[in-house]
């Protein structure tokens, strides 16, 4: 039972992370291969604010989000100057540098990481794991609501226009700079939220929890589900975060499968399971059309 709670909480955290990355890479089309860095910044910020500064979870969490988003803002400014492939390398670099900072400064606990991170409490009652999961589910619902509004908003459409063609977006009067920055801030803020939630769930964090392979895992989720779609990252996170738990034998071959899957998907199905050109979506559309056709014929 407790095991199921743990897996479910991790799935929720990955949904938050993947939804955030989807804003940056899926909607705005900006490569970010260092998403785990912002996940880590959120986690370390929240952990330090509670253990060393003495804030409560409820105060530390929003601050952690703001701190991660601020660093994301800086990365966004850098991104404005760089070509797509240079930016991709830079984001990888950010991931390595951030993990190194966690590893090499006493303040961040070095390789041992930080422990003793408190679970949040409500009216003096400290939440246990299942209760915490309820809280996390509410947070995920809130995140998804915000993402849903974004994906159907004018802002979402404008950000997608930037992804499709920057110069054309400019020529329509769209402020491409502001839109890109907005996407980076929004996406990394969600990563920070995921980090905070993770830190207070595990109560113990270490630098390797936020290393480059985690960025790849999250990217895998977004790409598998379908970048730039609302449900894609959710589906991707659920599949990839729960599969190794359901099929234990996978655990051994985790990176083999993730890596291979990522490469094969990108070659044969770059739109992902729920993307526009996906075999599933096309198949579904064909099915709907056929059913409709029958209804028309019989009617």
């Amino acid at each position, binding site marked *: 039972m407790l095991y199921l709670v743990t897996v479910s909480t991790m799935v929720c955290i990955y949904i938050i992370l993947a939804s955030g990355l989807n804003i940056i890479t899926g909607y705005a*089309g900006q490569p970010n*291969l260092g998403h785990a860095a912002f996940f880590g910044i959120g986690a370390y910020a929240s952990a330090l604010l509670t253990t060393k500064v003495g804030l409560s979870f409820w105060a530390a969490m929003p601050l952690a989000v703001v701190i991660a988003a601020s660093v994301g803002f800086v990365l966004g400014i850098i991104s404005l*100057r760089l070509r797509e492939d240079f930016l*991709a390398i830079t984001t990888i670099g950010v991931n390595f540098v951030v993990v190194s900072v966690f590893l090499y400064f006493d303040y961040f606990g070095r390789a041992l990481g930080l422990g003793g991170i408190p679970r949040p409490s409500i009216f003096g009652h400290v939440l246990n794991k299942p209760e915490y999961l309820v809280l996390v589910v509410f947070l995920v619902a809130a995140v998804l609501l915000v993402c849903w509004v974004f994906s159907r908003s004018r802002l979402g459409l404008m950000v997608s226009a930037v992804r499709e063609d920057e110069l054309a977006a400019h020529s329509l009067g769209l402020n491409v700079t502001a839109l890109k920055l907005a996407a980076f801030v929004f996406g990394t803020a969600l990563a920070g939220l995921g980090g905070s939630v993770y830190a207070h769930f595990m109560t113990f964090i270490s630098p390797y929890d936020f290393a480059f392979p985690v960025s790849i895992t999250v990217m895998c989720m977004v790409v598998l589900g379908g970048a730039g779609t609302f449900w894609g990252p959710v589906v991707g996170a659920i599949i990839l975060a729960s599969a190794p738990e359901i099929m234990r034998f996978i655990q051994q071959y985790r990176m083999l499968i993730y*890596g291979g899957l990522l490469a094969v998907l990108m070659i044969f199905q770059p739109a992902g399971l729920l993307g526009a050109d996906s075999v599933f979506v096309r198949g579904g559309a064909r099915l709907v059309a056929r059913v409709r056709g029958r209804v028309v014929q019989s009617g």
Partner: protein
Amino acid sequence: MVIQQIANGLVLGSLYALVALGLTIVYGVLRVLHVAHAGVFVLGAYAGLLVYVSSGSIVLCLAVAMLVCGFAGFLMYRFLYRPVLGRPALIPLIVSIGTFMFLEDLYRLVMGPYIKALPLKLSLPGLDLPFLRLTGQQLFIVGVTALLLLALWWLMKGTRLGLAWRASAQDMETAGAHGINTDVIVGLCFVIGSAIAAVAGIMVGSYYNQVYPSMGSVPAYKALAVIVLGGLGSVPGTVVAGLALGLAETLTMVWVGTILPREAIAFLVLILMLLVKPTGLLGRAS
């Protein structure tokens, strides 16, 4: 002392340059950041190890590793990159990263997770001066790097292949329209770059006397930093950047101590440099 450290830095830098050279050749024609190159590098180390252990011949070990890796490089081009050519730059990059992670795990499963020794027995004399000591192995590394660079330089400047490579690097379509079989050129680039990676793998493996499945993960991304610093697609730029990085790392280790691990230094330098000059160290504005 200073001269000794500079020499050590240059030996390390030669290794970086060797690993990054293949990436540069590939980037030059395809504009693809070939992260999986590091997977070929590890393959070279393992192939060399197996051949050396069973035969004891350094020449055979190098030759077989270069052949195996050259073939592997060709397969990668044919089945991984060619299908995604012309798509946004991010797609081949992700394909490449995915492939690299796949390979790393594959090596772990096939060869085991443990560190294996690669003690190449070189009957080379070392250099022993009052102010400078280099082992025979260090000299070997610098010598092989120089030899490969010369060979590459000749290939680029003195042969029809080099001319075709430069033409394709400038403009693939125009080169194709003038009768250059760009598919073959790109394939050859992968073969040559991968063969160099095999040598690099054996050199690194024997230098540290360690061959293990994840030995490519740091070079994979550090080599990216090197080729970006070198201006992407520029062979001399890559060599300069590799040597400079080797020097910078060695000298900061000595004088400043370990503030940050080496990987972080490479990327910090890279990020700062890109902020000042977004087109790369020796790159021209597009």
